[in-house]
């Protein structure tokens, strides 16, 4: 069997083993950080080498095609940025720090497996690899009660939802006798949607919905976002959710789920509930990380609108929006990271009072990120929202489009609240309360994210052309 096409996955797992071995010999934070970056870069570069002979099926489990390639690249890039942001954040941590990067690599590996799986087995394998490393990452700073609580909460809920997912898969298998996506689409045609299949799908939606944190499976989000350290939160928001969404899209396109109205109806209800619920719940939060958590629920709802549309714009819209969302949310949580210190994360709205007059650059970047989340022009978020709406209206999903628009107006309110706090002139926060550590890597990462954000907002053509060539399902 030709294993060359899964070179990036091999590099990712190889690097993590290397770091584990190194830790056994000699604990060195800088070296394991460096190895992590080298591993991620190598995996990224290897994508170019394998791109020549695609698509390739790896036994019955994985499919490496352009779609997978694009998303693996995106996930690795996100993971790279998160690592850069984590460096200074973790540097002053008193416990063992090196394993953090091992877990980061393994989680990235799990998510990468998700985006190239075409079989329930690899799907579940990827998901579990991702989830298990996330349990530990969330509770990494375990002497803080909050982290521990968040970790356990995530562990229990994720395990329960995995069980649902697995049961759903089993039901589908019982009916169709196959775990392969293509086999399932055949089964759809020949056997049809029996009650058993519908139940199975319902259970799978529970598992998938949990990972995506859409209403009504969203309960864990605010607590986990708040409890995990800011870089880990960024990681969950991007690598975990993005990988899952890419898989969902591939799965749905392969089995051509758009012809089954009951499933579409379920997704529509979830989308509407997420958009409205997420935005409403975020309104009166005082904690920036909780605001971002609830807003992420709403954003996944927006993404579902394009997902449901199921026309030729769908994959482009979803992919572009995911890229924009990755940039934005890593940027926003990166700001939180940069402003935090060892004892306390900068997460209260009050911590941001008058930030613009103290640190204009950081506040300006944060403003750009928030405006992008709100979908205001000159930022990538605007083009992303345009694409989502275009996809929705292209399939005449009027109700979903109008809910998207109106709920994003609600969303505007809490983004503006943060912005207003930053620009309020009565900034009575004393400087000592928050003494951010200056980190070169983190600052460079943020600068680049901002650059990308504005660049994509003004000249989206390049990325769109790239998405068009890569991500056609």
């Amino acid at each position: 069997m030709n294993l060359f096409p899964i070179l990036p996955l091999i590099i990712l797992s190889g690097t993590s083993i290397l770091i584990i071995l190194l830790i056994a010999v000699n604990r060195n934070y800088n070296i394991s950080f460096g190895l992590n970056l080298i591993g991620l870069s190598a995996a990224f570069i290897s994508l170019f080498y394998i791109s020549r002979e695609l698509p390739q099926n790896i036994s019955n489990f994985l499919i490496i095609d352009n779609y997978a390639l694009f998303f693996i690249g995106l996930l690795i890039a996100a993971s790279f940025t998160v690592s850069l942001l984590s460096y200074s954040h973790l540097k002053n941590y008193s416990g063992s720090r090196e394993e953090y990067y091992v877990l980061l690599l393994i989680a990235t590996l799990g998510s990468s497996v998700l985006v190239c799986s075409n079989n329930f087995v690899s799907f579940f394998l990827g998901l579990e690899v991702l989830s298990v490393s996330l349990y530990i990452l969330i509770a990494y700073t375990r002497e803080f009660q909050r982290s521990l609580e968040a970790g356990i909460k995530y562990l229990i809920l994720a395990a329960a939802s995995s069980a649902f997912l697995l049961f759903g898969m089993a039901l589908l298998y019982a009916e169709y006798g196959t775990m392969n996506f293509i086999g399932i689409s055949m089964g759809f045609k020949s056997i049809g949607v029996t009650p058993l299949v519908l139940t199975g799908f319902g259970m799978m939606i529970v598992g998938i919905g949990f990972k995506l944190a859409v209403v009504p499976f969203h309960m864990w989000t605010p607590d986990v976002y708040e409890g995990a350290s800011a870089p880990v939160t960024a990681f969950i928001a991007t690598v975990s959710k993005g990988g899952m969404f890419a898989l969902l899209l591939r799965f749905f396109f392969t089995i051509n789920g758009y012809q089954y109205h009951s499933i579409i109806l379920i997704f529509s209800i979830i989308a509407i509930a997420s958009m409205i619920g997420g935005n409403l719940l975020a309104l009166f939060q005082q904690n920036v990380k909780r605001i971002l958590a609830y807003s992420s629920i709403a954003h996944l709802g927006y993404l579902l609108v394009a997902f449901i549309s199921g026309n030729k714009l769908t994959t482009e819209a979803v992919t572009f929006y995911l890229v924009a969302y990755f940039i934005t949310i890593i940027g926003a949580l990166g700001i939180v990271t940069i402003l935090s210190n060892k004892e306390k994360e900068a997460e209260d709205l009050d911590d941001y009072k008058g930030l613009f007059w103290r640190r204009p650059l950081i506040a300006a970047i944060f403003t750009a990120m928030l405006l992008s989340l709100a979908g205001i022009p000159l930022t990538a978020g605007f083009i992303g929202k345009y694409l989502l709406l275009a996809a929705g209206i292209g399939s005449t999903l009027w109700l979903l489009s109008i809910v998207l628009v109106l709920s994003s107006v609600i969303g505007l309110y809490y983004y503006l609240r943060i912005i207003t706090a930053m620009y309020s002139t009565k900034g009575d926060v004393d400087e000592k309360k928050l003494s951010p550590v200056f980190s070169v890597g983190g600052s460079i990462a943020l600068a680049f994210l901002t650059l990308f954000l504005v660049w994509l907002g003004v000249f989206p053509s390049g990325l769109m052309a790239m998405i068009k060539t890569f991500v056609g399902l």
Partner: protein
Amino acid sequence: MILFWLIAILLIGGLLAWLFEKVNVTAVRVISLLALLVDFIMIVIFWITNYDSIKLGINNDWITEINWNWIPEFGIRFHLAIDGLSLMLIALTLFLGILSVLTSWSEIRERVGFFHFNILWILAGIMGVFLSLDLFLFYFFWEVMLIPMYFIIGIWGHENRVYAAFKFFIFTQASGLLMFIAILALYFIHGSQTGNYTFEYEALLGTSLSSTAAMWLMLGFLIAFAVKLPAIPFHNWLPDAHTEAPTAGSVILAGLLLKTGAYGMLRFVLPLFPLAAKEFAPIAMLIGVAGILYGAKLAFAQTDLKRLVAYSSVSHMGFVMLGIFAMNQLAFQGVIMQMIAHGISTGALFILVGSLQERIHTRDLNQMGGLWEQVPRMGAIGLLFTLASLGLPGLGNFVAEFLVLAGSYQASIYITVLAALGLVASTIYSLRIMQKVFYGNKVKEWKLNDFNSREMITMGSMIIIIVWLGIFPQTFLNTSKKTMENLISNPNRIKIVNNVKQNSFELSNKLIFPQGYKIQNDLNISYISFNKKIMGER
């Protein structure tokens, strides 16, 4: 290219102004002023050189345009074009821009660089709105002007600024997004009919819509513009925003941002959905009249001077709504005049209120009275502009309101009678300003200085324009005439031209005369309009 530079100079000027904040505050003001002056001189020269051709209507629909690819995947182009209507509004934008920099010279003392950055970027956004011929680009600029305005109100505003800024932003953003849905729907309907997915204004003009679809889409556009205008019942962001904003913000809000609503109705609602607009016209006219009367009534009831002026805007903008939906040449010309005259007169009143507040730190009418003795210049200028606002012949607003009423009389006599009552009401509240502030008994002994030379320059230039508007309105009417004729004579004119182009000529001609075809076409159009002109004069 001039169109690109008009916008680019402001954007760059804004960034420079921000950067120079640390160096020198005066430098910031000078840079902003220079950027605006350069732009203003450019547009005035452009106006003068093209005045005759605009007047005769011998050029194409657009005096000049630029049309670049932006996001080709979705048929989005960077398409700016200028005609008589946008030319005047651009000139107004830059003129009021200069004035707002001048009025904030002593008013704004904190974070001056960021303030001027915001001012210049709003102005750039507004100009983009007046120039865009691509609906996506239009929406883009429509949104771009919001954020800086939000900051202007939220950072440099008065007591209740945060509330006002939120309200302003959410009202405009919500309505803007509804318009965006309508734009997208139009895009897809047009695309599915012709296979040509484009946001191009002139192409979309030819979309044939079912009457229900047209009505819904028209309402989608109209709601965004009605919020901006503002028309009743969407007006209630306006008094808060105007009152809480710093003077420059109020001037830009009243003078320019409201005009984008009127402009949008003229440029988009009527030409894109002529039949639906006609069907909706009676209701819209009623809304306009309601605005006139209700705004005037509320203006009369205010004790906060700035709020009073803000409500008077609601009343004046009612005339704009009325005129647009009266749908005839006279009324349209009146609307244009009203847009400019109101921009100047209300701008001047806001500047006056601003300078009063700077001196006596209150806007409460009950605290003022008998100020004329101490500030005769202020009093005289205030008198002039309140008279302008109540529609005294010889000043710009009279011409405007007269034309609107003359036009709407042809559409509906009853509505016109009601609207004319608005003139009486505006006399009452305008004279109340004079009575309460400058005449009457002294309530308190205020110590205040009269206008200094900088303020006299500001006011003097506005007086010249408002008098010019009143005495030689023809200069402005000539400039907008062609655009308005196009709106009236045949709203589907471009559609026909376009269809002909698409169906019969395009392919064959493009193959044979890749260049020549366009020139020939242009000549044809100018010949036709030239002919029309001659015939018309005979």
